[in-house]
């Protein structure tokens, strides 16, 4: 299971980087948000995937570590805010120029 999730992180990073290196502004923004998803998944993985729901009384046996989930929650809020900012910035660039491709420098 852990190997599969690790592969998922790899897929998220590669697609994210591929989109980021493209020319279209919208694709770049989607690529960036995929990269932050990859980071969230790897934090989830850091606590291990075994164990039950971390609520006292809800599970018998070992529970998963709930701290990484709290960390992810914070990271999701931050990446939501930054993505919203990027979309607003992209919209402004669209209003300025009308074309959304970045020129090659």
């Amino acid at each position, binding site marked *: 299971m852990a190997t599969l999730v690790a592969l998922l992180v790899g897929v998220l990073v590669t697609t994210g980087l591929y989109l980021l290196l493209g020319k279209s*502004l919208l694709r770049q923004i989607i690529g960036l948000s995929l990269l932050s998803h990859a980071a*969230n998944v790897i934090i989830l993985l850091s606590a291990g995937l075994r164990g039950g729901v971390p609520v006292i009384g809800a599970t018998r046996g070992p529970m998963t570590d709930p701290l990484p989930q709290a960390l992810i929650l914070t990271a999701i809020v931050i990446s939501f805010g930054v993505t919203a900012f990027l979309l607003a*910035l992209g919209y402004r*660039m669209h209003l300025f120029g009308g074309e959304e491709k970045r020129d090659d420098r």
Partner: protein
Amino acid sequence: MIASLIAALPALPIIVPLLTAILLIAGPSRRAQRTLGLAGSLATLAASITLVLLTRGGQVMPIQAGGWAAPYGITLVADMLGALMVLIAALIGLVGLVFTIAAGRDDRFVHAGWQFLLTGINWAFLTGDLFNLYVAYEVMLISSYFLLTHGTTQRQAREAFGYVAINLVASMFFLFGVALVYSATGTLNMAHLAERVPLAPAGTVRAASMMLLVAFGTKAAIFPFYFWLPHAYAIPPGGVAAFFGGMLTKVGVYSLFRVFTIIFPSGGPDPLLLWSASATMLFGVLGALAQDSVRRILSFHIISQVGYMIMGLALASQLGIAGGIFYVLHHIVVKSGLLLVGGAIEETQRTDRLDRLGGLARTNGVLALVFVVCALSLAGVPPFSGFFAKLLLIRAGLEVGQYGVVAVSIIVSVLTLMSMLKIYTTVFWGPGEPRRAPARLVVPAAALALITIAVGLRAQVLYSLTSTAAAHLTQPARYVGTVLKK
């Protein structure tokens, strides 16, 4: 009452600008905004001066938020290094704000963004927890995105997009590093990590430290991650550029100092960091030689100066780290001073291109003097603060026998002086009767020039403080013991 006030003091440099920013978001009149912004900055400065005085003897002041003891709760720690960095941030925040107000570039929510930026920076300096460091970074970065893109043209918006993208990628590396550290040690509290990392599997620890090196290195603009900086710092108006150029990369440098001493100690000169430091110094200064506008030359010099700081860290001796911290503090003052001189030139002449400027020394005598003081200090000419910063680093380098990096640092000093002379001879000499910059634009830079002279004349005072700060990093026992209440 007084005891509990003192115990809460390490939180004040975060809370004061945060509350000021929240008040500013309500959108009072321009005049009220200016008063509030300046009052908030002054209060932060007062709190940080008190903090430096309280930690002067090597005290470590932890706060456990919500009463949850470390390593379970959120820990804020003020030690000598944190307090010095907060002091310099509050100082540059105030001086830059005065310039921004004087130049009339403080429309709409600039004041609120400014205070949020100060909140994030101070939070990064005072946190004792790796994940909180990430959150502090994001608070700082999103405020910097706002200040950077505020009132931009299309071209500038594109450059800003690149800045946001590179920072997001660096943040991803940061989170990867945090995840690896957590999986290897089961904690994120820095003091707790100092105890646990030596017990963790070496491979995971190495991978985590490299992830964090990439993350902090990108934000600090070290080789080979510095390419974004000259583009981004060419965008904002002078006052904002001085705050960014002085502080933002230095938050990355501070994190490197904190993490690669307490959590991942190297035990001896670190070859990877030494190579990176040499390359950062050299490529930064060579890039500067090729530029043709004041702002861009100064931006490339930020990169080359970061190389010196990393050199101090890479030497990993107490003298080297003390010299590195000294260099950080000196550099922030001088670089912000130079960027403010550049800002004053841009605001009055409407350009900062070398080929369109000339003869400023004839009409702007004081501005020329301020530039000369800051430029000589940057290049490391005595009796200014830069001389002592470089002297400490070179002595530290010779002590541990790293002659290569010492040679590079001396060559780069000469090249720095050369490119400062290039600005001086083209901008301040030559024909032309340019407009005179009003005194209110010159005073902030002049204040910083006076500080570099004062530090140069009384270098011993600052050196003893940075030496205390370095002792906490090289022998973290006291830091760890106080935070974990042993």
